[in-house]
């Protein structure tokens, strides 16, 4: 049943300017699944993630989100779908003029929910990512690790069904990367589907010791299961 998977890509290809970037990609993200997506820089990891949250539209094949074909979802529908998808970027994408609390609560704000009414959950969430003491800080005042943890907090504030993380540890040291990984594993244990694009093989090895993660690799524009070395 297609609705059983939160996100499903069926023989998806994506081309830009006549160049094929991804070909014949099929992927199913079931609730509670944990996937790593690896491959060299420029392989198309970010492109695949963008297809998953409809920043890009497949040029061939079908992307299904929460049981709905992507091409049937209008702009307002995309906004609603994105409230069920938590996105973490390497560069975090914060609004620098807003405080950490305002940035983290932004998904609540744009969906018309009261920040005040959710303050207890917000503080609990910021405590969970270790940023309880930074609520009034502006993003430029935060360290790389703090920004990544804040980005994760923002991604999960709406209690999404799936977390898509694009090189979330790209700017972090090993200790901070492990801390972020622990948070992702915790989220996965809560039943969230997780897809992490990374080229950090050590992080993948470390994750596999904690959770049953599948590792996928993009090679020659196609998706394949990574070998036993991972």
């Amino acid at each position, binding site marked *: 049943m297609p609705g059983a998977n939160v996100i499903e890509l069926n023989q998806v290809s994506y081309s830009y300017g006549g160049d094929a970037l991804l070909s014949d990609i099929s992927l199913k993200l079931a609730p509670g699944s944990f996937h790593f997506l690896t491959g060299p820089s420029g392989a198309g990891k970010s492109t695949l993630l963008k297809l998953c*949250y*409809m*920043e*890009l*539209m497949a040029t061939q094949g079908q992307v299904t989100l929460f049981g709905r074909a992507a091409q049937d979802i209008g*702009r*307002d529908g*995309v*906004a*609603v779908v*994105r*409230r069920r998808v938590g*996105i973490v970027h390497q560069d975090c*994408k*914060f*609004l620098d*003029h*807003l405080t950490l609390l*305002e940035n983290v609560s*932004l*998904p609540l*704000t*744009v*969906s018309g929910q009261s*920040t005040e009414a959710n303050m207890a959950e917000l503080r609990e969430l910021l405590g969970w990512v270790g940023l309880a003491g930074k609520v009034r800080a502006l993003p430029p005042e935060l360290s790389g690790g703090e920004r990544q943890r804040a980005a994760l907090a*923002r991604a999960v504030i*709406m209690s999404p069904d799936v977390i898509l993380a694009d090189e979330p540890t790209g700017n972090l040291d090993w200790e901070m990367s492990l801390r972020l990984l622990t948070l992702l594993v915790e989220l996965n244990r809560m039943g969230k589907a997780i897809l992490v694009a990374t080229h950090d093989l050590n992080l993948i090895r470390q994750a596999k010791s904690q959770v049953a993660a599948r590792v996928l690799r993009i090679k020659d524009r196609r998706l394949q299961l990574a070998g036993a070395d991972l």
Partner: protein
Amino acid sequence: MNLAARLLSAIKGDPRADRAVPPTGFTAQLTVLTAAAMAFLCVFAIALSLATARLADRWSSQLAQSSTVRISAPVDQLATQTAAALKVLQTTSGVAASRPLDADEQRALLAPWFGPDLPVESLPIPQLIEVVETPQGYDAEGLRLRLRAEVPGAVLDDHTRWRRPLIEAAGRLNLLGLFCVGLIALVTVAMITLAANSALAANSQVIRVLRQVGARDDYIARAFVRRFTLRALAGAAGGTVAGMLAITLLPSADAAGGFLTGLGFTGAGWLLPLTIPPLAAVIAFWSTRVAAMRALKEIT
């Protein structure tokens, strides 16, 4: 939601949505300044339109009143020819009434040029006969021919005739004033659209982030629309007040012989410029909304 409700909602706004979009100083000033300048010009365009409408009305009413027969004859024949002319006029179809102007009326006519105490009785000035037309009017050419045949010194001066092109000109000027108001509205649309596009382009990253965390287009557009609507309203209010003040301070031209009615407002006409700020707000609301929705479509 109807326009009024949308406009009120835009003005009331959502402070949290406003916080999400950083303030843009330059475009803010540009919008306020543009709205103020356009409102100021609009006050004058409306005043011009109203003044020319009054002028056309005045000339129209005068056109329906009278023409003049001038008797230029030696003093000893003046009374005879005047009587003959009156007789012709009384038997002319389309002439409702005719009467010779008395000395006081002739003196009043000449007073602007010669002063109030002109001894008209002792001067060889022509006798004037005021002719009042019926609504159908008379045949001017026929009357001229009859007067020429029966009263050699009589000249029919249907002076109202030259007012016709002036009335038409006043009517055109009135239309021109309204056209200027429309043109000002279009320029305001263009300027606000440019400023809105500039603000949207400057905040494209903010918009991308908002879209990514699940903001609908309508939510993002509202933050921009509210700002531009309020700026246009404030600027137009300032410009309108300045324009009305400038109109008030203009010297009145009405007393100069009644020819010019003066550029200004009378009576309920003063209420018209007060519609400029809300109209500017409506224009800003729609211009910004259209610009925002168009720009947002470019961002996935």
